[in-house]
């Protein structure tokens, strides 16, 4: 059973401590809702879990069945989309290293998020909301174990949020875990929560 445990985590930004003594455990199938005021370090916590930021102190370990590296994915404030590439190309080659998806899988993911018709439209012509949906489609294709979502609701309209809830529930159902920061409530069963 996949498990993420964090013990005594503390992070710094430019010499001042953001948070310290954060400890929690998260198994497959559960999600953690991180709350806190602006500047409390929610994003830094997610980036630390993603392996981008080196914590000032504390330990982040992944145990369980997941082979050498836990496949984690981070959705930050920016929708990581290349303007020159079309929606479909963004999913196929936009991020080198994603698990290679066939054209059919890409098309299926696009239709699932309601961008089926916009597959060949260069991403520069997509609205901010559509770009957010493209990020959701990528989430499906990456089939990662740990989702690290930073304010995923931003930029999504009401049925976009519904989609997010649906995907999150599916992800948790087949054993994935998620750490989510969000001000608005999410249409998912209330999981653990952590206040920074």
């Amino acid at each position: 059973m996949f498990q993420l445990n964090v013990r005594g985590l503390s992070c710094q930004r430019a010499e001042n401590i953001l948070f310290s003594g954060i400890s929690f455990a998260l198994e497959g199938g559960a999600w953690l809702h991180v709350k806190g005021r602006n500047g409390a370090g929610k994003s830094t916590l997610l980036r630390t879990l993603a392996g981008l930021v080196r914590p000032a102190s504390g330990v982040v370990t992944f145990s369980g069945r997941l082979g050498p590296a836990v496949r984690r994915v981070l959705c930050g404030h920016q929708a990581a989309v290349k303007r020159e590439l079309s929606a479909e190309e963004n999913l196929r080659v936009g991020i080198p290293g994603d698990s290679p998806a066939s054209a059919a899988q890409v098309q299926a993911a696009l239709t699932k998020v309601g961008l089926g018709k916009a597959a060949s439209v260069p991403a520069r012509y997509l609205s901010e909301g559509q770009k957010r949906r493209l990020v959701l489609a990528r989430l499906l294709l990456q089939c990662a174990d740990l989702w690290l979502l930073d304010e995923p609701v931003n930029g999504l309209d009401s049925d976009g949020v519904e989609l997010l809830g649906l995907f999150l529930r599916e992800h948790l159902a087949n054993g994935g875990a998620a750490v989510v920061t969000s001000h608005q409530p999410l249409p998912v069963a209330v999981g653990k929560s952590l206040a920074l």
Partner: protein
Amino acid sequence: MNRWLHFASPQRFYPLAGRLMPWLVVSAALLALAGLAIGLLIAPSDAQQGEGYRIIFVHVPASWMSMFIYLVMAFWAGVGLVLNTRLSSMMAQALAPTGAMFALLSLLTGALWGKPMWGAWWVWDARLTSELILLFLYLGFIALYSSIEDPSRADRASAVLALVGAVNVPIIYFSVKWWSTLHQGASVSLTRSPSMAVTMLWGMGIMVLAFWAYAIAVALARVRCIILEREARAEWVKYAVE
């Protein structure tokens, strides 16, 4: 190992540096006086260059120190990067301006030496040219860490640059030497210093020690400033400042 780590925290190092500095400043001054006395008073005049050669008593120590300080700086930067100890990166940043100053002094005294001896302020000699490039490496290092706000990124990014620079220093020196012998032949070169009488060697040796003591004193003073600037909000700093 623990003994050594004891002083690795800025809090304990700050007073230690304060106590060491006066001793170093005094010994630097005494050594400099002794070195100059030997160099200017006692050392005999040189066969070909007469009295003008005495500039080497400041030129050679300056260029030697500029090279030595760069390697020490790269060492501390590497230690700071690997062990993630902030103090080592601060020490590297404290050494950089002094190293750049020595490189500049070496170029200036090299020109002042070249003018009477070879009639030109600037000679594209292998040593002077690589000294110039060493100065550019220093300026690159200083420019990088001073244009990054976040101290931890500044430390680590400048450490990478210092290490890359340190690897390149021998390559640059070799390529410039190859280039200068290719174009101009080895006739005119500062490297072939005049035949060294014993007192000359003593004079230069003592001047190197004087510059060395001075460099450490200044580095300690600057590292204290950096500690104060970066740890201004820390508790202990409030009582460390008289």
